[in-house]
């Protein structure tokens, strides 16, 4: 499902973000990518969602060589993966319903189907009654659930979550984790979750890839936070 082969990333300003990354994630897996600030986590996410191209090596997601995509192909590629960010990135002037529906309008889905699809994902993330609310009227945890609902509305095969619990307290983080686990089980969606939340990683054990200085320091099938918890 996701295959990084001999991946290097060096930015124009000379910063080497990733060195010789070899990583394979199979369909239906739930994987944490952990690491301190500057370890290359965000760069890895950017390579996966097509925002950046590797300096060397190949990044393949759902069989697509992401680095070889032309600029015009990137939006279409992104319709096949869901991305959730730490800061939610919801359209502030759109209602919850409109935020989720937008991701479906983009692919030209029929309005009736959009309505039923949005209701379905809102139900899955436990926000059935919040369709008409605006993001600012919701708590952080609820906003993140809307972001997740938007990311999965299109039934992507891969969901990339960039620090989805970063702004949340432990209780809300648990809520988000249970939503993600439900999606992983219900749809068989492959989930790559970048985090440095040791509490979450240790409590909800899953395969954990640890990055440090742009290298893969460890790949633990049984999980657990192995880095200094700072």
């Amino acid at each position, binding site marked *: 499902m996701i295959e990084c082969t001999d991946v290097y990333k060096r930015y124009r300003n000379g910063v080497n973000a990733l060195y010789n990354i070899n990583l394979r994630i199979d369909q239906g897996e739930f994987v944490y990518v952990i690491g301190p600030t500057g370890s290359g986590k965000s760069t890895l996410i950017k390579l996966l*969602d097509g925002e950046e191209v590797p300096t060397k090596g190949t990044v393949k997601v759902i069989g697509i060589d992401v680095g070889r995509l032309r*600029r015009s192909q990137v*939006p279409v*590629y*992104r*319709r096949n993966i869901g991305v959730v960010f730490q800061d939610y990135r919801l359209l502030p*002037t759109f209602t919850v319903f409109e935020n989720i529906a*937008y991701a479906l309008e*983009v692919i*030209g889905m029929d309005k009736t189907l959009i309505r039923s699809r949005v209701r379905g994902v809102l139900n899955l993330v436990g926000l059935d009654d919040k369709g008409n609310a605006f993001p600012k009227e919701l708590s952080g945890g609820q906003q993140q659930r809307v972001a997740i609902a938007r990311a999965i509305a299109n039934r992507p095969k891969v969901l990339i979550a960039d620090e989805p619990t970063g702004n949340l307290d432990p209780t809300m983080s648990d809520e988000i984790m249970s939503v993600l686990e439900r999606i992983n089980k219900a749809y068989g969606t492959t989930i790559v979750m970048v985090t440095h939340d040791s509490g979450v990683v240790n409590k909800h054990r899953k395969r954990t890839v640890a990055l440090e200085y742009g290298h893969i320091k460890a790949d633990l099938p049984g999980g657990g936070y192995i880095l200094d918890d700072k």
Partner: protein
Amino acid sequence: MISRFFRPVVEGFKGVWRHAAMSLSSIFSVMMSLILVSLMMMFTFNVRRFTQGLEHSIQIAVTVDYGHEAAEEEDRMALAIKDIPGVTTVTFSSKDDELEYYINSVANEEAKKLFEPYREDGKNPMHDAFYVEVDDGSRLEEITHQIEQIEGVDEVEYGGASATKLVSALNLVRLIGMGLTGALSLLAVFLIANTINTTIENRSMELGIMRNVGAKNSFIRGPFLIEGIIIGLLGSIVPILMTYFGYRYLYGITGGHLVSDMFVLLDPEPFAKQLSLALLAMGVFVGFLGSYISVTRRLRWKR
């Protein structure tokens, strides 16, 4: 298919409403700019009208020498005058017509009687005359000089240097007006584009999110362009109303001319209508262009 076509329109209207405060500031900016453009255009077009009217009203009066008043002689002279480049019309006025005109121009009825004896045969002291109109007021002097060279011409008068000076001055005012209108229109475009640019700058995060969920540039751009057009349309309403009704009012209270009959204002029908349409087109075009440039610039930033 239909919903795909109407989606940007519906989203464009929603966008204006969702960002009401920013939309209002853009609409206000369009409104102020178009009011200024409208005023400048009214001024410039009317000055052009004055100049044209004045040029038209300045005639060269050519009197025929007593010895050349035979019909064939006068035909020859008329043809020679017509042949001069820049001459548009040549009108003949007989010495009897000249006398009638002169007598009629005297206001005092007693004084008019003094001229009665000149009506008798052979006593008319006036000359036959030609009245010559030219296409360009600035060439009056040159054409006058050429007419003087024609055989049989007694005297040529065109109002002197003051007439050409007035035409030149009005031409200069017209040119300055046109320059100002052009500069102001450019300023309006810049001002409106800048306001719309700021509006979109504030929404660059929105554009980023739209890209993140897989929207193509054309999908994102559509509603923004419609928003620009709506802002242009709404911003042009007040200037159009001011132009259409304001100009009619001005025309009404001045009686259609300023100071004297020489400065005749353009008729509101169709001028006010044409100017209103121009303002509408300008508002829509500038709104569209401002949005297009701003959005396109922000959609170019990355993969």
